[in-house]
């Protein structure tokens, strides 16, 4: 069973979703939680069985799909994808468990389970075509979630989301096809396996073009400035669960793909585009933080803060050294946990008041102290306070990029200031002051369902902030092999110099445990 655990992980939710059609409406929630829980346990088992000392792919599965064109059903995980898969199953569980939606809950849970399949599929796929299929499929459930359960502008938002990301992915598909064609030219046979592609050394000008093609697909997904405008709409209109999954997992697809495709396939192009992308990342960080500060709607604040944090992730990714890339991968998880939690928290107040405008609130700290506490913890995590999960990622990302550029990192570091500004301002508007609005006087504090969703997130946010090692170590080992691969493949002098050579030391550094 462990040999096919990835297939199981991918298709179990889909299968369960199909069975879900015959489950009665009343027991659907329990059914959904059960399925998501089993899936989560399976993913934990994957972690348990994963050997952190091996930096390469594990639990590989392969089955030919179209052998003539070298398309295989090829799966595998390494330290980079492992935790994002766990994050996906975790958030599906949290999302279903804390679901407060009442309209057509059966359809919603079925959609969510399908979405889970596509998310796990994206992160487990090692074949470009399989990856692409899951990548595109993930749009469909999300389109439904926004379009069917969303706010007043939902149709606009969902179509914008779909078309925008879809356009980007088409360009990416062209890149993939060309990549395969190039592989065919070079070796005489077709292959869409990413691992096979890794071995290919592309001429630099090809790298540049291909990088741009892939970049467009990924950048829209991330979303990077100036392709980010679909996100506020999607978040603004999506139901709580949609925003949670979107922010926690779907956005990570883009950044994950950067690490999986762009860096190892195009090392020279990565170095070539490092500074332009860093500048975009910095614009993302500062500009969207400012936009977030100007928002009137708390959900939009969180939405724009997502973009801002994704900027730091991008920056870390393009640090092109172990510290930066590990940090950015870690920050993907961190941002998933924190922004997911923040969206859940916004959902809590939205369920009670059916508004997200901050001006409607104020003084909530005295009415809902526990809610305020958890919101405060998550806000501080979002701001990147040490000993919370975000700090580790942000610190490493910025640290990594500092090696490449002092000035840009200094500018990007403004993130910690502007991040604090909009978050604290929003918190102040929501929770501080006296209760002015009559409607807020009798709000109920968190109920059991909401605790069920939020407490685990708080625990994770602090646990991984204090002791990130169990996660960071496998990430580190896999990232080291990626960086080494990049260094070996790099052709230009600059790339060789920018990407550190790790071959001098052991493949796996023995970690000195504290005595």
């Amino acid at each position, binding site marked *: 069973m462990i040999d096919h655990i990835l297939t199981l992980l991918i298709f179990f939710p889909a299968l369960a979703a199909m069975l879900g059609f015959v489950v009665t409406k009343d027991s659907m929630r329990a059914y959904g939680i059960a399925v998501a829980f089993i899936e989560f346990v399976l993913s934990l088992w994957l972690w348990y069985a994963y050997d952190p000392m091996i930096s390469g792919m594990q639990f590989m599965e392969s089955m030919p799909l179209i052998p003539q064109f070298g398309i295989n059903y090829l799966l595998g995980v390494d330290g980079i994808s492992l935790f994002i898969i766990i994050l996906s199953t975790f958030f599906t569980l949290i999302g279903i468990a804390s679901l407060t939606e009442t309209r057509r809950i059966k359809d919603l849970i079925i959609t969510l389970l399908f979405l889970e399949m596509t998310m796990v599929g994206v992160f487990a796929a090692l074949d470009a075509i399989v990856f692409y299929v899951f990548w595109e499929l993930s749009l469909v459930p999300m389109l439904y979630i926004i379009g069917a359960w969303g706010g007043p502008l939902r149709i606009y938002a969902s179509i*914008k989301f779909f*078309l*925008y990301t879809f356009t980007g992915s088409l360009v990416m598909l062209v890149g993939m096809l060309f990549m395969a064609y190039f592989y065919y030219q070079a070796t005489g046979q077709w292959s869409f396996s990413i691992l096979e592609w890794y071995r290919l050394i592309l001429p630099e000008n090809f790298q540049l073009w291909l990088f741009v093609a892939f970049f467009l697909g990924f950048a829209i997904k991330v979303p990077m*400035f*100036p*392709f*980010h*405008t679909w996100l506020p709409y999607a978040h603004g209109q999506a139901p709580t669960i949609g925003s949670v999954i979107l922010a926690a997992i779907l956005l990570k697809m883009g950044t994950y793909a950067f690490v999986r495709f762009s860096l190892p396939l195009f090392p020279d192009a990565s170095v070539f585009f490092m500074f332009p992308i860093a500048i975009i990342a910095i614009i993302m960080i500062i*500009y969207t933080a*400012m*936009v977030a*500060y*100007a*928002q009137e709607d708390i959900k939009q604040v969180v939405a724009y803060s997502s973009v801002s944090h994704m900027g730091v992730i991008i920056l870390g990714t393009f640090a092109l050294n*172990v*510290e930066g890339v*590990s*940090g950015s991968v870690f920050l993907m998880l961190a941002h998933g946990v924190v922004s997911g939690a923040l969206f859940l928290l916004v959902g809590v107040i939205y369920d009670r008041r059916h508004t997200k405008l901050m001006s409607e609130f104020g*003084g909530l*700290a*005295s009415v809902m*102290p*526990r809610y305020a*506490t958890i919101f405060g913890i998550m806000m*501080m995590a979002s701001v990147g*306070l*040490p*000993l919370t999960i975000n700090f*580790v990622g942000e*610190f*490493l990302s*910025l*640290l990594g990029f*500092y090696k490449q550029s002092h000035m840009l*990192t*200094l500018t990007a*570091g*403004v993130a*910690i*200031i502007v991040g*604090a*500004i909009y978050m*604290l*301002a929003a918190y*102040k508007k929501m929770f*501080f*002051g006296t209760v002015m609005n009559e409607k807020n006087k009798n709000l109920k504090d968190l109920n059991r369902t909401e605790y069920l969703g939020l407490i685990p997130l708080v625990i994770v946010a602090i646990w991984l902030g*204090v*002791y*990130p*090692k169990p996660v*960071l*170590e496998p*990430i*580190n080992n896999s*990232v*080291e092999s990626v960086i080494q691969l990049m260094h070996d493949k790099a052709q230009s002098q600059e790339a060789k110099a920018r990407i550190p050579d790790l071959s001098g030391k052991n493949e796996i550094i023995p*970690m*000195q445990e*504290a005595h």
Partner: protein
Amino acid sequence: MELYLYIALFAPLVGSLYAALFGGSPKSQHVGIVASGLLFTSFVSSALLLSYVLGGHTVHVEMMTWIATGDLYIPFGFVVDQVSVVMMMVVTIVSTVVHIYSIGYMDHDKGFNRFFSWLSAFVFSMMVLVMSDNFAGLFIGWEGVGLCSWGLIGFWYHKESATWAANEAFIMNRIADLGMLIGIFLLYWNTGSLQYDVVFAEIGNLPLVVTTWIGIFLFIGAMGKSAQFPLHTWLADAMEGPTPVSALIHAATMVTAGVYLVVRANPIYDLIPNVGIFIASLGAFVALFAASMALVNRDMKRIIAYSTLSQLGYMFVAAGLGAYWVALFHLMAHAFFKALLFLGAGNVMHAMHDELDPFKMGGLRKVMKGTFIMMTLASVALAGIYPFAGFFSKDLILEVGFVEHHYVIYTVLLLTAGLTAFYSFRLVALIFHGEERYKLFGIHPHEAYKFMLVAMSPLLVLAIIAGSFKMTYYQLVTSLLPSTQYHVHGEMTYWIMTIGTQLFVIAAIVFAYKKYSNWNSVPDGSSKLENSFGYKLLWNQYYIPKFYDEVFSKPYLELSKIAWKQIDLKIVDATVDGIANIIYKTGENTRDIQNGNLSTMLRWMVIGLVVLITLAVAFTVGYNAVGA
């Protein structure tokens, strides 16, 4: 000894979590008692560690790995050496006192439990800050105290001014923290580690310019936490928090973290004397600058806050000039008498029902004897009168300035010493002497609880006798810090200087008493003095808060709104929608082609045919031409 270390470190955390458990429930006395008890435990452990360290040993433990990736390895490592143990003692003593005091002070507050949770959490963060054996750990504590400071300044969250001040403090500190973070990055990429021992061993091998930048960036971090100009405005506003908080955080401990950082990083600053001069100059400037603002202020707590700021300036002068042990000594002494002063102010506030204007008080010495004595003595110590603590530490700094031949700094500090004495006793005189102006406002003052006064007494004792530890202290810390002795050449000069300073200070005190002890009215802003330019300038804090508000806060908000409404919605998003619209409109317009009219379709067919054939011909011709 490791056990004591862990007890000293984690007892406050346990207290904090215990209090947090009851955070939502109404006041429970036991929370305060348990938290204070745990703090006391921490204090006892620190004392035991001190005796151990006095024996010439140090304790260094590595609890567990925190971050390890690539070449970066950051553990949770803690070190108790001669410097950190001094800080630990200061922190635990003051915080124990403040905790016990708070049981009384926060007696009637709804957020009693929450308060203790925050306060203990602060102590924990502070302990992490001082005990960490690496820069990242220091940064944890650094941000942790910032967080707790945010929570405590904004403790009365229903007050707009309090929450505003809390956010201001946090954000100002964040600005400085960025500098610190960059300093840490620089250290890591140049020395390959963040452990103090490794860094300090390596630092000598770095190019001077790199060391300079490291020093500058670390000092920027220190500037934020220690509220040095231009990041000083938050400290005065932070007085919105409960008074015990001001005593503990904004006088004794957190704000001195910047000084601690410079002292801790002394091997770095030793290499870059130019940065040191800058630090000293800035310190001297802030000392005078803050003291001048304290002269006219009419808010009791703000006056003390400015005095704190001014004293921090003194410490930076010492640290900048390389007299690290002197800086640390003043830090210690200052912590005791300034905390005492704040707690006394807290008593007065309670008595006066949260009235802060000393001009509305007067003659309180009759009702508040204990507080009166304590505050007076604390002010004497602050003014630096022999044989109080302030004399030993502050005079030493003056001597350092003199011996190092920085006469300008010396003069500024001397002047500031006079101002300090003046405004301290202006405050004392206005509060405790003169007519009982509070009667105009129908207030019936009363002395604080007895146990609060008892709790304050250790601070009083220390404020008086701390100076006598000078030699023990010197021997202790100089095993780690540069052991330069600062002796003025020539017996004569020394005596003239010392006595001259004392006379100057006493003169200032007498002047203050003369001027204010018989004050009998509440100023209403109509007197000539109050309308003079200088007064207004000082009253408005040199218009700096206004300047920040106008130049940074408001434009930032405006800019943010523009970024959202104009750029994001009208340019970026509109472009995307524009592209989509073009495609949609193209479809909308070209659907007329599909009007179902066969005749038109035939025409289009012919057009298509013509185009295709033309292309075919053109390409064939072109191909043949190339082929030929």
